């Protein structure tokens, strides 16, 4: 540590303009994380409306058109506003610290890519107050429901998506350039921590598919305003083309939302098992394999559109193949724990819950891959259960685990372990109470995206709603824990976790505003 000299003469700017003008990766990381936390509660409150309406059969609280706006906005806000920015926030904080770089490679672009987001989401959310209401065609916005039959606000939705896409692409470029150019001298690609690896691969996925999303919404825009017929059969277009282009974006997108969580968990499990990660190389190759496969499985979301049988079989087989590299990852995490010396602080608890619950989501994904069976599962609550298992106790738990893990280094203070444990157990119970019964109602025949349902689904829906209220309310505790830590936490130690390895732990606690102004020398820890 003696080699490290802090440069105090160049601290953060004073006053609130610091947050607008900053080009510091730590400030921007914090902005991203705070933004995504706010969006988590905005999207979460919409989930509350959905679950309150579904608490009992019959229409009680909202009209069906508003219900559809809630499901649509909930999905869009959680995907683009909560999960993706949270991972970019983690990357902003951690990638430079983990590769020994002083900052991101393109700091001004970093500022811009964050500050686009509040405007994009302000525009998206403002559609709720427009005549005709917000987008109501589901987050998958299938044409022609989202073109010919859409509310006028769809144009604002398209523009908001464009802005989010620009932000994501700039963020991804920044991460790739940083990782390729700014690693500490001597750090080869195969020396990088897995979090950096998974983000590198994620960034390539982003660059590959965000333009496809931009293309599909632009085609919608043309259909709506300029008289083209890309997706209008009456004009010679094809509504199914929309789905192909959309899912070509959206399937890699689901890996964009989970690969960085794989990275976080791959950092946390070795730390608390006090044992090196099992199969580092196969972890990297498995991640690459998942990313490559993610481009050739998209039509498994469309088994019921009437594809020729050759298409059905191709997409069924490729989808099943994804189970192999995903399985490798799970086996590696478990082998890392095997014969370790484990302790179970909050980050580890969330990481273990991630492994278990993500695997459940992965197994239901394997069931969904079986095309004939998918004819029964498709567009039911079984699918809703599946993707919430991979996104909530998957991605979101990964983010929460990462925040608990690195928070002491970020702010120099330790969170309250007892409250962290409470947060974990309440979240764990809440998340399973919410999403597990959805498997049952889905198999029993409840379609997704309906504001009212037949009587045989009533019991499980009530259970799900209760779970959702528990899970949502519990996240207020998370905010309380963070605020309490930042304001009055006990000072954290230089190395808050006994088994932690990596460059990020070599900087002082809290991490000073500027780190690694001179690159670290590897091998001298």
């Amino acid at each position, binding site marked *: 540590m003696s080699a490290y000299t802090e440069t105090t003469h160049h601290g953060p700017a004073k006053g609130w303009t610091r947050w607008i003008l900053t080009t510091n990766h730590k400030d921007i990381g914090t902005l991203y994380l705070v933004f995504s936390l706010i969006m988590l509660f905005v999207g979460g409150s919409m989930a509350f409306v959905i679950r309150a309406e579904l608490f009992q059969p019959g229409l009680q609280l909202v009209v069906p058109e508003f219900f559809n706006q809630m499901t649509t906005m909930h999905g869009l806000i959680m995907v683009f506003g909560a999960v993706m920015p949270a991972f970019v926030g983690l990357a902003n904080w951690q990638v430079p610290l983990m590769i020994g770089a002083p900052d991101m490679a393109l700091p001004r672009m970093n500022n811009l890519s964050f500050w686009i987001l509040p405007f994009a989401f302000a525009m998206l959310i403002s559609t709720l107050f427009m005549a005709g209401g917000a987008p109501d065609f589901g987050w998958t916005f299938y044409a022609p429901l989202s073109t010919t039959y859409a509310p006028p606000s769809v144009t604002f939705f398209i523009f908001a998506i464009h802005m989010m896409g620009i932000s994501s692409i700039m963020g991804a470029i920044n991460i790739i350039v940083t990782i390729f150019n700014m690693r500490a001298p001597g750090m080869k690609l195969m020396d990088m921590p897995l979090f950096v690896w998974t983000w590198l691969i994620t960034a390539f996925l982003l660059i590959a598919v965000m333009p496809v999303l931009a293309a599909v919404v632009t085609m919608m825009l043309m259909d709506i305003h300029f008289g083209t017929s890309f997706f209008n059969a009456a004009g010679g277009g094809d509504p199914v083309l929309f789905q192909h282009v959309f899912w070509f974006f959206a399937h890699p997108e689901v890996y964009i939302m989970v690969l960085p969580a794989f990275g976080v968990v791959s950092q946390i499990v070795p730390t608390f098992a006090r044992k090196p990660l099992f199969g580092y190389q196969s972890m990297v190759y498995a991640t690459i394999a998942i990313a490559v496969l993610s481009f050739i499985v998209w039509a498994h979301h469309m088994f019921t559109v009437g594809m020729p049988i050759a298409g059905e079989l191709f997409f069924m087989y490729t989808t099943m193949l994804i189970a192999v590299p995903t399985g490798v990852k799970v086996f590696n995490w478990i082998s890392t724990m095997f014969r370790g010396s484990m302790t179970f602080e909050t980050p580890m608890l969330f990481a273990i819950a991630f492994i278990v619950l993500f695997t459940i989501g992965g197994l239901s994904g394997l069931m969904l891959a079986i095309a004939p069976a998918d*004819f029964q599962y498709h567009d039911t609550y079984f699918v809703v259960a599946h993707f919430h298992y991979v996104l909530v106790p998957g991605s979101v738990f990964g983010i929460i685990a990462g925040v608990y893990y690195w928070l002491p280094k970020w702010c120099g203070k330790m969170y309250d372990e007892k409250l962290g444990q409470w947060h974990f157990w309440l979240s764990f119970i809440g998340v399973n109470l919410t999403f597990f019964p959805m498997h049952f109602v889905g198999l029993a025949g409840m379609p997704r995206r309906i504001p009212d349902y037949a009587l045989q689904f009533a019991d499980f829906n009530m259970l799900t709603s209760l779970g959702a209220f528990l899970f949502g309310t519990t996240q207020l505790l998370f905010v309380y824990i963070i605020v309490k830590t930042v304001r009055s936490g006990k000072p954290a130690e230089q190395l808050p976790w006994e088994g932690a390895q990596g460059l990020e732990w070599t900087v002082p606690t809290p991490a000073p505003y500027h780190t690694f102004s001179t690159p670290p020398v590897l091998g001298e820890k």
Partner: protein
Amino acid sequence: MRRLLHLFCLALVFIPEPLLALEFNMPRGVTDTSQSIFGLHMTIFYICLAIAIIVFGVMFWSIFHHRKSKGAKAAQFHGNVLIEIVWTIIPLIILVLIAIPSTMTLVDMYDAGESDIDIQVTGHQWKWHYKYIGEDVDFFSILNTSREEIENRKKKNPNYLLEVDNALVVPINQKIRFLFTSNDVIHAWWVPDLAIKKDAIPGFINESWTRINEPGTYRGQCAELCGKHHAFMPIEVKAVPEAEYLAWLDEQKAAKLAVAASAEKDWSMDELMAAGATVYEKNCAVCHQADGSGMPPAFPPLNGSAIVQGDKVGHIEIVVHGRLEKGMPAFGEQLSAVDIAAVITYERNSWDNQTGDIVTPAEIQAMMEKE
């Protein structure tokens, strides 16, 4: 907590199959296809369960035994090529084993040729249209659950939201081919007991087939988000023995002739108003509301509307041809001349609209023939 979890897992494994086939599992259904899908589903479920038990078993075993508080010392191994190859190959083998029966079932499901009966199913916002090809029988099938039940003003009946006015009637033991398409947005026709779920896409025709083994009533719902009343366009299939089916067909044909004949008779204002109220409730109230107030800006009000209070011809044209770009369907393709005449008369003489006009079925027929 842990013990509870164990008990729960054990309970899951030992639940007898009849119970699993109830409320929280996929229905076995009443066709060979649905049963083979159920078989596939249960097979893959048990495989997943076995994988989960093994994987989580090893994990929890390590969690109990290799914890620091028990004095575990961490080993420092970080790889083993052999085991990594093994756990790549074994899943691959399992996948191939699953893929074989799945492929066979799928091939069978795609063999829609040589059918005994062809039925065209057209999705509309928010109802289904069934056309028996070659039989001159076709009709709409609309949700039959009362508004009072949906709005919690009346006790819900056991078939709440799963009942329609005109069920699709089909014979058992015959190969029925369905041709799916849509008139507006994408819908999906799904009856779990038949294991058919197929998208109904505007401009495209998808096909699927079934052969029902047991008579009965099988219910389903639209499975693709199709707008605000997506939850309210159920499907009801009545499978009956062939003789009963043929009798029903004759009945339908006779009823159709009767409707055509009724267009010729003289309709009084009161008769038209009474018939119009029913047609309005079924077809129009969804958007324009029961009190004619509409839901601007998407659905304009009819009460006080310039079109409704203005010239008859303009009003008839909109109802017959629709305003497709704004989501108003062309009811000329959906309703009989009597129904159209009745509903227009009803709209022109309800709420604040008191034009006193009578629109007769003969007028509608004359206008439609002119085109």
